[in-house]
């Protein structure tokens, strides 16, 4: 209730209430006590009077003299407090009665307990007292007296008045005292509170509360408050100072950082510049290597290819001298090609441009390939080649490079081992790895030379008589082995043979390489001829172009009435026939064709708008196609018809895309010699046009082409459903990146490098892919 009051109000109230309550309690207690006392006195007075009346009225009672009793009671007139009195005889008869004022009634009398002689009762504004009258131990009557309590009430009123005055006085005094207290207690607190409020409102810690000077807790409070303010002020100052310092320090640091950053930026700029230069240099080098590779190999390929052809005496016999010279040209060219390849390889390795694609390589198949490739060389020297390997073993290696390593090592061994020597190719497990050894029983290498032989262009003196070789083979081989994370090592004693070996991580099982399934399309030695019976010129042209582009020879027949005659005259291998024609309709034509013995065996493909296959086949049609007909459906239908008559699909040309004229001519010669028909394209644009005109059986594609590159062409063809299935062989001298190699692996059927002897491999692959080799033209 007082919680909202100010402290001075609270103090005042507290004082007033406390003193008021104390006084009130005292007054009530005092009045209560006084009343009780007063009552007791009154009862006692009344009792005395009753006693006197009783003893004075004994004789009156005994001698039945109410008058005497009346006289006795009349004496009560002198007692102003007695309102009325009366005497009863012992038999209950009223004997005498007294009233101070007339007309009063007899009051209700309290019963007198048997052991006592007196009883009284307070009631209304009066006290009633009854006393029994006894004489000689005998009860002779009773006397009662009624005293009014007017005096009591008056007294009560008086007391109440006094109490009120005292209360008022003391409250006034309390008010005064509390105002004094207020000055001493409340005002300092109020002052303190206002100061605190001002501090928290204005955040001004420099104000101070004024000490009250009264001493005691309040002074302590004020002092403590002031002390607190002093501390806060100090801390505030310190904090501000700290903040300022911190800010300054941050600024300094920021500046330092700024300059450091600038330095770093300058530095990184210079690094970037250096990097760009490096990249440019490296790109230039790559470009140089690639160009060199291409530019050196292309003419060499021509030299080798044509000298080969000359040596074959395909174009006339050579005399001995000519043959020898051609042999020299070929040998020199081969050596030069090898030298160029080795130099390029080595510089690639030295430049760190040689990339290794690790895969699981079957050792046995690699050994097989290498040995079969080198067997002719060994045979020349009557050397025996022996391999020893667990067929299921695989190693993690780059297949091409792994074979190259083996090729070099075995080639070296053949070269440096005398005739009738023995060369072993062994794979054995050493711990988790496979150790590949190439061992010969040649003259061996002295220990002082054993490390030198891995350096480039080093050839040992004693091998002088065997002058073949570039001196780069072992250096390249050693580098390639290092690229595989291993080391090429040598074990040799002069006169006791040599063993080169290295170790590669072992992989448990050989993955089974599923053979690439090739859909074989039987090829006819001459193009099948198809007669197109169609009165609508546009439709006829469309069908004609579709069939023509797939290698068919076509005849058009615009007049259905002449169809049977034309078929009998030209003997086509198949006929396409429209059903709705004028003046003779397709059904009539079909009937005539089937009736005429000259044409009844020719398969007929009905191409029509009506979807009623039953109608066509009922009259003997082989196929029933509904317009519009797409190319694949048409070709499939035609092929089915041809095959059902023992015929074959037309032999299609092989498209050779090659910008270098001599290489192009060489490939043309090679293919023509094997009976393939050849279409050539000298650049990417031409190749695109040829492909659009007619689908070839296969494409031999060079990658480095003017206008449109081979890779672009390949991507284009693969994304077009029409050309997606045409097999593509890539023949290039381009140094391929990993990505390019991956792309070719996915999209080309075979890849041949011009720097290697690709001719035989290409012909082998060609036969594998095309299955049915064409008969060589005579």
């Amino acid at each position, binding site marked *: 209730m007082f919680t909202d009051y100010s402290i001075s109000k609270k103090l005042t109230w507290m004082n007033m209430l406390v003193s008021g309550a104390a006084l009130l309690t005292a007054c009530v207690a005092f009045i209560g006590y006084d009343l009780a006392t007063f009552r007791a006195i009154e009862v006692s007075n009344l009792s005395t009077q009753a006693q006197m009346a009783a003893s*004075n009225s*004994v*004789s*009156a009672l*005994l*001698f*039945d*003299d109410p008058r*005497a009793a009346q006289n006795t009671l009349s004496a009560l007139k002198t007692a102003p407090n007695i309102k009325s009195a009366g005497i*009863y*005889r*012992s*038999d*209950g*008869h*009223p004997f005498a009665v007294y009233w101070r004022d007339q007309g009063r*009634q*007899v*009051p*209700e*009398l309290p*019963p007198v307990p*048997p052991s006592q002689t007196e009883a009284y009762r307070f009631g209304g504004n009066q006290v009633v007292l009854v006393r029994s009258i006894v*004489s*000689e131990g*005998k*009860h*002779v009557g*009773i006397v009662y007296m009624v005293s009014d309590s007017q005096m009591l009430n008056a007294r009560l009123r008086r007391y109440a008045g006094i109490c009120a005055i005292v209360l008022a006085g003391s409250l006034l005094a309390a008010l005064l005292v509390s105002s004094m207290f207020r000055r001493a207690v409340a005002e300092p607190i109020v002052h303190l509170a206002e100061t605190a409020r001002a501090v928290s409102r204005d955040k001004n810690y420099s104000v101070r509360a004024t000490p009250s000077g009264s001493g005691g807790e309040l002074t302590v409070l004020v002092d403590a408050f002031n002390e607190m303010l002093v501390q806060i002020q100090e801390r505030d100052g310190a904090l501000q100072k700290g903040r300022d310092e911190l800010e300054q320090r941050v600024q300094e640091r920021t500046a330092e950082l700024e300059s450091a950053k600038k330095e770093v930026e300058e530095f990184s700029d210079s690094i970037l510049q250096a990097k760009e230069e490096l990249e440019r240099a490296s790109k230039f080098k790559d470009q140089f290597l690639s160009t060199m590779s291409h530019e050196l190999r292309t003419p060499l390929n021509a030299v080798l290819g044509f000298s080969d052809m000359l040596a074959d005496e395909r174009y006339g016999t050579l005399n001995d001298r000519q043959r020898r010279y051609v042999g020299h040209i070929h040998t020199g060219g081969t050596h030069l090609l090898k030298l160029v390849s080795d130099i390029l390889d080595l510089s690639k390795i030295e430049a760190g441009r040689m990339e290794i694609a690790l895969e699981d390589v079957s050792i046995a198949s690699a050994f097989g390939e290498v040995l079969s490739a080198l067997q002719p060389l060994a045979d020349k020297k009557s050397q025996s080649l022996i391999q020893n390997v667990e067929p299921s073993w695989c190693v993690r290696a780059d297949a091409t490079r792994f074979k190259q390593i083996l090729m070099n090592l075995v080639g070296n061994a053949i070269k440096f081992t005398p005739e009738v020597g023995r060369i072993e190719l062994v794979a054995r497990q050493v711990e988790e790895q496979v150790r590949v050894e190439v061992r010969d029983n040649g003259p061996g290498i002295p220990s002082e030379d054993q490390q030198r032989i891995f350096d480039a262009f080093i050839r040992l003196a004693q091998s002088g008589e065997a002058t073949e070789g570039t001196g780069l083979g072992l250096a390249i081989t050693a580098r390639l082995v290092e690229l595989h994370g291993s080391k090429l090592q040598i074990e040799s004693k002069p006169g006791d043979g040599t063993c080169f070996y290295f170790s590669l991580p072992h992989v448990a099982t050989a993955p089974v390489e599923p053979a690439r399934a090739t859909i074989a399309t039987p090829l006819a030695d001459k193009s099948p001829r198809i007669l197109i019976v169609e009165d609508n010129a546009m439709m006829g042209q469309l069908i004609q172009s579709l069939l023509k582009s797939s290698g068919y020879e076509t005849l058009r027949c615009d007049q259905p009435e002449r169809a049977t005659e034309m078929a009998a005259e030209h003997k086509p291998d198949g006929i396409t026939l429209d059903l709705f024609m004028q003046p003779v309709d397709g059904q009539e034509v079909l009937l005539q064709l089937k009736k005429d013995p000259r044409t009844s065996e020719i398969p007929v493909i009905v191409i029509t708008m009506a979807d009623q296959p039953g109608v066509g086949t009922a009259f003997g049609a082989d196929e029933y196609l509904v317009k519009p007909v797409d190319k694949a459906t048409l070709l499939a239908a035609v092929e089915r018809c041809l095959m059902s008559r023992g015929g074959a699909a037309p032999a299609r040309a092989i498209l050779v895309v090659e910008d270098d004229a001599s290489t192009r001519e060489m490939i043309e010669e090679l293919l023509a010699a094997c009976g393939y028909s050849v279409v050539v394209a000298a650049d990417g644009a031409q190749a695109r046009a040829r492909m659009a005109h007619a689908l070839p059986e296969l494409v031999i594609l060079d990658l480095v082409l003017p206008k449109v590159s081979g890779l672009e062409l390949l991507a284009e063809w693969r994304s077009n459903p029409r050309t997606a299935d045409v097999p593509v062989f890539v023949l290039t001298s381009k140094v391929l990146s990993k990505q390019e190699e991956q792309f070719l692996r996915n999209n080309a059927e075979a890849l041949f490098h011009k720097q290697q002897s690709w001719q035989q491999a290409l012909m082998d692959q060609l036969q594998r892919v095309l299955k049915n080799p064409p008969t060589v033209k005579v």
Partner: protein
Amino acid sequence: MSRDNRIGFQGIPRGRVPANRRALPWLTALVIVGILFGVSGLPAQKSKPQEYEVKATYLYNFARFVQWPSSSAAAKSDSFAICVLGEDPFGRALDTIVAGESIDGKAALAKRVSKPQDAVSCRVLYISSSEDSRLKEVLAALDKSGVLTVSDIPQFSRRGGMIQFVLDGNSVRFEVNLTAAESAGLTLSSELLKVAVTVRRNSLSGD
């Protein structure tokens, strides 16, 4: 009788006070007082005491207000005798009243005497009207004997008797000859004198 009252008083159930006492305070008071004293109905009206019953009671009551000289024969006696000289008008009333009572520690008894000399040992002597003729001799015989003389005889108090019953209407009153009593050595209480109709002094000289 008073003992009966007390028993009756004790038996009052307090709950029997009427609830409408405010309305009839006077009647209520009467009833209460009646109950208080064990009186049922209005016995005072019904059996109003006969004149001599009242007088007998008075004889007994006088004893309370009289002091006898210790030298008197009556004072020396073992009993407190209330005597009747001459024809007895009380019947059984006097005997009933004194039965079992004691005064000043002495057993009260009622005695009939025929000669004044026999009455010397009595405390109170009622002289019957039959003795009117020889009253002089009787009083003379009792002179200074310390016996309280009481009688109905007219002019008794004037003739030297101490207490004379008079009738005032229906109520029995009495006259006192104080001189006669004092000369006999008796002291009468002022209380007694207060209720007397007349108190005579020196009546003998007047007689």
